[in-house]
């Protein structure tokens, strides 16, 4: 299915936003993603850097501190809303799948 910009989130997008529910800086985000996904998902530095720039441009995350080379980001209300929508979508997908499998 075609995915418009941020209408649905890819796995790295989803986990980056999850990590940014609390303020984090670059490398911390990568560690947090590994921790949240129990090592299943790892986001490369290039991917993370590109997505952070895109998210910031779209107002999905905000930069809240700039300590020279270390910038700290946090998800905005729009970012949280996107996460909620994604979780809802994933839940309904999961329920639909389970219902069919249980028949």
């Amino acid at each position, binding site marked *: 299915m075609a995915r418009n910009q941020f209408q649905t989130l890819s796995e*790295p997008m989803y986990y980056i936003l999850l990590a940014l529910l609390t303020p984090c800086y670059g490398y911390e985000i*990568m560690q947090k993603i590994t921790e949240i996904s129990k090592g299943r998902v*790892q986001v*490369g*530095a*290039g991917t993370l850097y590109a997505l952070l720039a895109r998210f910031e441009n779209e107002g999905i995350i905000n930069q809240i501190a700039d300590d020279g080379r270390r910038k700290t980001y946090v998800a905005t209300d729009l970012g949280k809303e996107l996460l909620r929508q994604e979780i809802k979508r994933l839940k309904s997908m999961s329920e639909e799948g389970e219902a069919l499998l249980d028949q």
Partner: protein
Amino acid sequence: MKKLWIPLSYGVNDTRAMSELFERFAKKGWHFDKLYGTGVLFIKGEKQACAYAVDLFSLKRKNNDDEQLQEYYDFCAQSGWEFADGYDQYQVFKAAEGAEPIPLQSDDEVAFDILYQQRIREIGHSVYEAFSTILLLFLAYCLFPLDFYTDDLFLMIGILTPVLDCLILLRQAFRYVKMRQVKKAVAQGEPYIFTNHLLSRSIRDFTVLLLCIGFLAGYMLFKYLRHEQLPGTIYYVIALVNLLLIGRYVKRNGGRTLKPKTYVKIFCISFIGCSLLFGILDHEFAASSHVEPSRVIRMTNVDEQGKFTKNSSYFVPYQCQYEALENDYQYRLYVARDLKSSETLFDELLKETTRGFKDAQSIKAALSKLNDEFTVSGYYLNDEHTDIIVHDNTSIIIIESNLSFDDPYVIRQFNEQLSKLDLS
């Protein structure tokens, strides 16, 4: 320390192939050192299995982006990738010893998105360059029409470049449409295949470079063999070629766009260098004088047959060279395309011809004895069909302004005048 430079041309979708190439070289003991616009420098070391990653910096490069770039390098370093070197958007990283880092681009869709942005930027640059070149040529034509009329090289460049530019624009339009289609397909879940065009791209670019150098060298050789002077354009052309080469081969300001003043500096140095070099070489190419300083010129009516050699250049379709007795002096007869070009051609030829004579005074003295009809200061057009142009008794060049060159008539007229000279 042994070093190895290999020419390499690469595009935005060759990053993965580049990483593999660097890894193969490392296994053979050649370790990546520096990345250039058209090549890579390796340093000899131990044979090692090293992991490399080539990534495209996702943001548009600016002159003040050190902080952003450093932040990006820090991201990569913290995840086990040490920055090795970069050129423009291309950033090369080497895996830290003992580390097993996750790929820099862990998501193909994001990787494609960065690639797409870069490609669109490349297309934009290419279109901008093509339009700028056409505009510059148009300005040059308006400001220096003489050069366009009289200089084959300038004309060739003036015609070939816009044609090539149009082809480039057409190609970029196709590439743009194709990229849009690929983007749509990727958004619909189709995987994007990162290609490997390193070899074909390098061969193509190297061939184009050789062709350009060959073209210039061939042109100079052609001039040399014909004992003709190199036109002034050659300095500009070579300085511009140098500038392009410098831009591509020299490490640029940490991968950023060169500042305009740096471009100007490079151009000036290149231009002065070329002028000095060709100023020295120019003697080799200069038309040699057929008049010895103390020699008395004797001109009589000559047999037309065998005294004229005909040549043709691509842009000056018909040239006829007249040689007086004993090869003492050369007159040139040119067929120009129209009156305007015959005038401009005359000016240029006059400059060139007088420059070729060491003993201009004796030529002047000789020609001052020509019939009054021919010694009008400035240009003189003889009749409706043929322009016999005399300028200030300095030299004579006959230029016919229509394409039906009736050489016996022109030559007869000319010879009649010459035969009246008694220079003994």
